[in-house]
């Protein structure tokens, strides 16, 4: 029955209930090859070309665990503050589906590679800690294509290129209480996975997928309500919508005197509703048992420590470091660590300059605006971080005025040339040579006797006007600092 038949509960009614949310997040590991064979993990290849007997599940083929996948899983575990198990076990999860060529998925069940972790999410109300129950490794299934073929009314096509792609599934505790918290949690997971290079988390390519477990209960109720699993929530926006829809739906059901059914529901991104997929009675019995084709995964302290030592910096740590090392405020360090690419860009720019704050302003200001206008990602910027750093340095040295820098910047972005190259080409050079400046200043003073008089009589603010006049006379090329100093000396 469609929930839209029920009335949407009022705000007062909604307020009687507390939502309880847990997320299961699938993350594709950024390995070159698949988890149990040597096939490439590439995206966009012709159907059924990146395949071999192993990922096709051919009779007699056997899985062999990809070491790089394990290292990335360990990294993920560490990033999520999990304990990494010295010995974990792969299990078979048995179910039938046409794009599951073995008839089972190789996953981890009671002994996952990482468990008992947490992530801290930042909310308006402060920081909240969300428990991470476990992170386990598994192989992905292939893809069923129900549409798009001439005979799609009669046939479904299966592409097994994705079959055997390495995933980790990150299961949270039911610690979230609103769609905003779920959103913040997923953001944090995505950032952590990207910063540690565990995954690109490209949602369009399905590298980050999310299922949400949602229940509601009256405030103060000792037990959780009946849980509904919502599948196919594959964007941040949809996560928020699906969770909100499901909370409302469940409250509506209860308020109408009904009971929430334990079931799996599918989020429909066209109608923005969840629809029933299978009831508890129809739930799969996956008949897990230890995968006899693989030996237990043993992770020694030496291995664990090496992975730890090679671990890229986590976003939270990087944020803090930006504050202490570069003197940024919390807001700026937050913006500059939104993605690994931004943080890397900024840090390279800082390295090439002498002014971390100046670099921060340029990255968040002009560069961000320019990228937005051109619909480019920061790693696609024609303006290199080194050139940006040089620009900041030239300003700091007084070789370039702020105004001149603003003029040059779009040219740097358009051409990819450095500030120095553009200045040389266009003959734009800040005039800081005292002789040349004095000549201009003398002319300006001679032309503005009234202001000179005012200054001498104590109205020193008039110096701003005089500096402006000098700048204008120099076509913006005069070094403002030097002009200021020289003017003051002459007016004494």
């Amino acid at each position, binding site marked *: 029955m469609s929930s839209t038949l029920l009335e949407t509960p009022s705000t007062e009614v909604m307020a009687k209930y507390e939502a309880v949310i847990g997320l299961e997040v699938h993350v594709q590991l950024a390995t070159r090859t698949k988890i149990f064979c040597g096939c490439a993990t590439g995206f966009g290849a012709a159907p059924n070309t990146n395949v071999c*007997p192993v990922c*096709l*599940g*051919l*009779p*007699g*083929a*056997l*899985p*062999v*665990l990809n070491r790089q996948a394990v290292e990335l899983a360990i990294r993920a575990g560490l990033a999520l503050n999990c304990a990494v198990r010295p010995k974990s076990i792969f299990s*078979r999860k*048995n179910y*039938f589906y*046409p794009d599951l*060529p*073995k*008839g*089972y998925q190789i996953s981890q069940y009671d002994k996952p590679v990482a468990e008992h972790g947490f992530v801290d999410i930042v909310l308006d109300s402060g920081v909240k800690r969300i428990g991470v129950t476990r992170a386990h490794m598994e192989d992905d299934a292939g893809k069923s294509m129900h549409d798009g073929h001439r005979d799609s009314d009669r046939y479904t096509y*299966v592409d097994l290129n994705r079959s055997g792609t390495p995933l980790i599934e990150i299961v949270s505790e039911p610690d979230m209480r609103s769609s905003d918290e779920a959103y913040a949690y997923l953001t944090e997971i995505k950032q952590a996975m990207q910063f540690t290079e565990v995954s690109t988390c490209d949602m369009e390519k399905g590298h980050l997928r999310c299922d949400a477990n949602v229940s509601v209960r009256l405030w103060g109720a000792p037990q959780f309500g009946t849980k509904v699993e919502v599948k196919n929530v594959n964007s941040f926006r949809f996560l928020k919508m699906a969770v909100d829809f499901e909370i409302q739906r469940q409250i509506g059901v209860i308020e109408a005197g009904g009971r929430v059914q334990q079931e799996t529901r599918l989020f429909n991104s066209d109608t923005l509703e969840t629809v029933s997929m299978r009831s508890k009675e129809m739930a799969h*019995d996956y*008949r*897990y*048992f230890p995968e*006899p*084709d*693989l*030996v237990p995964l043993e992770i020694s302290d030496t291995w664990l420590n090496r992975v730890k030592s090679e671990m890229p910096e986590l976003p939270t740590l990087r944020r803090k470091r930006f504050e202490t090392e570069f003197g940024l405020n919390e807001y700026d360090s937050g913006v500059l660590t939104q993605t690994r690419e931004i943080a890397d860009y900024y840090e390279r720019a800082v390295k090439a300059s002498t002014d971390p704050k100046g670099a921060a302003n340029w990255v968040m200001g002009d560069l961000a605006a320019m990228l937005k206008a051109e619909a480019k990602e920061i790693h696609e910027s024609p303006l290199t971080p080194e050139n940006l750093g040089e620009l900041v340095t030239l300003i700091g040295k007084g070789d370039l005025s702020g105004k001149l820098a603003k003029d040059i910047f779009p040219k740097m972005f358009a051409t990819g040339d450095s500030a120095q190259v553009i200045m040389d080409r266009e003959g734009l050079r800040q005039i800081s040579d005292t002789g040349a400046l004095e000549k201009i200043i003398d002319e300006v003073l001679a032309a503005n006797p009234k202001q000179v008089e005012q200054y001498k009589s104590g109205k020193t603010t008039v110096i701003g006007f005089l500096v402006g006049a000098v700048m204008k006379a120099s076509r913006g090329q005069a070094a403002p600092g030097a002009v200021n100093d020289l003017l003051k000396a002459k007016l004494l």
Partner: protein
Amino acid sequence: MDVRSLTIDQVQTGLRNKTFSAMELTTSALAFAQAENPKTNAYLLFCPERALAAAAKVDELISNGEMLPPLAGVPIGVKDVIVTKGVRTTCGSKILEKYIPPYNATAVDRLEAAGGVILGKANCDEFAMGSSNENSAFGPVRNPVALDRVPGGSSGGSAAVVAQGTAVVSLGSDTGGSIRQPASFCGVVGVTPTYGRVSRYGLVAFASSLDHIGPFSRNVADAATLLKVIAGRDSMDATSAFAPVPDYNATLAQSVKGMRLGLPKEYFAGLASETASKINKGIEVLESLGCTVEEVSLPHTEYAIATYYIICTAEVSSNLARFDGVRYTARSEKSDTLSDMYRNSRGENFGAEAKRRIMLGTYVLSQGYYDAYYLKAQRVRNLITQDFAKAFEKVDALITPVSPFPAFKIGEKVNDPVQMYLSDIYTITGSLAGIPCMSVPCGNTVEGLPVGMQLLTKHFGEETMFRLAYAFETAGGFAG
């Protein structure tokens, strides 16, 4: 040349002395096998092109004066659960009736790299499930020794081709006795190596934690040669062992004097009387060679059958899930929904024994039953393994019967699966423990039916096992 009785050694000598070329040998072996096969139905398919191509390569080596590899020119049968690139591999099942694998099993690659000539694919019980070869979708195999009797199973075809002389050696697979029992029924040598000794890559899985590939031969030396070729670490099988492979043949002739042999008391009750007397006679032969014999106990033996049938059916239910009508060849056309297609394709194409085991295995893994069945069975499996470990603290090898009775009549036990399961009682324990075991002939009953004696040693104790078997053979023990 009489291809019926050739050994690897004779093939090597014949090629070296140019008594025959590999091409000549292959041609006559194929002709003989094709002529003889209708009597037993032991081969499901011959691959003459592949065989002749392999033979041509061997002849080229000879004409170039190069060293002969260990299996040069040797006619070999391969059980049809082991995949062969470009050559149909049915697993004795209708569901794979037309399946042509695009790759070779590692064991196949290795034996062909060693100059082996695969003549064809040997019949077997469907997906290696059975003790009589009556579960093949392509008809039973008849025992070459007594054509109205079963050759044993599941590697009935592999045992029969060696007994019949239509191959010099063959590859079989053993999960609970599927090499040793048919070897004993057909009067040939059959070896189940240590679990992990031979790569399972390309062996279509029945019960992955119990499946082994192993050799059949007419003498001990040939089994040792074949095992050495196919054994060793394979990066395609995570469960294959890193342990180096010894040159088994180099130590075959070493004396067995002073070797301590154990007779597990649990294995000698309920034997057919003729079987018992043949085994006892075999033990006397070993004693006469200077071995000492003592009674030992493997106390958890009585739980072995139950344990085995829980673990193997659980794994079967999962391993056979991929045969669902979506891929491979058998899809039921009369289905309107996906689940109907699964149901009908599997229902129409799996045989009764496969279905029985899939259902049992599905049941024991079901939610709420896992702990009581599968988990408990794994614990008992550990106890059985420990039984052996304790016994091997005292003795170098164990001697037991292979089967409680010799080859039975075709059709005799088909309607009594439990009786059929019980016939594996002496071979299942070694499989569960993953230790090397082999069957050697130890004479015939008055009716002329072969009886097999089983030798078991500790993990990776193949050298000791082969030495003992070779000494027994040399002392005339095979004749009983």
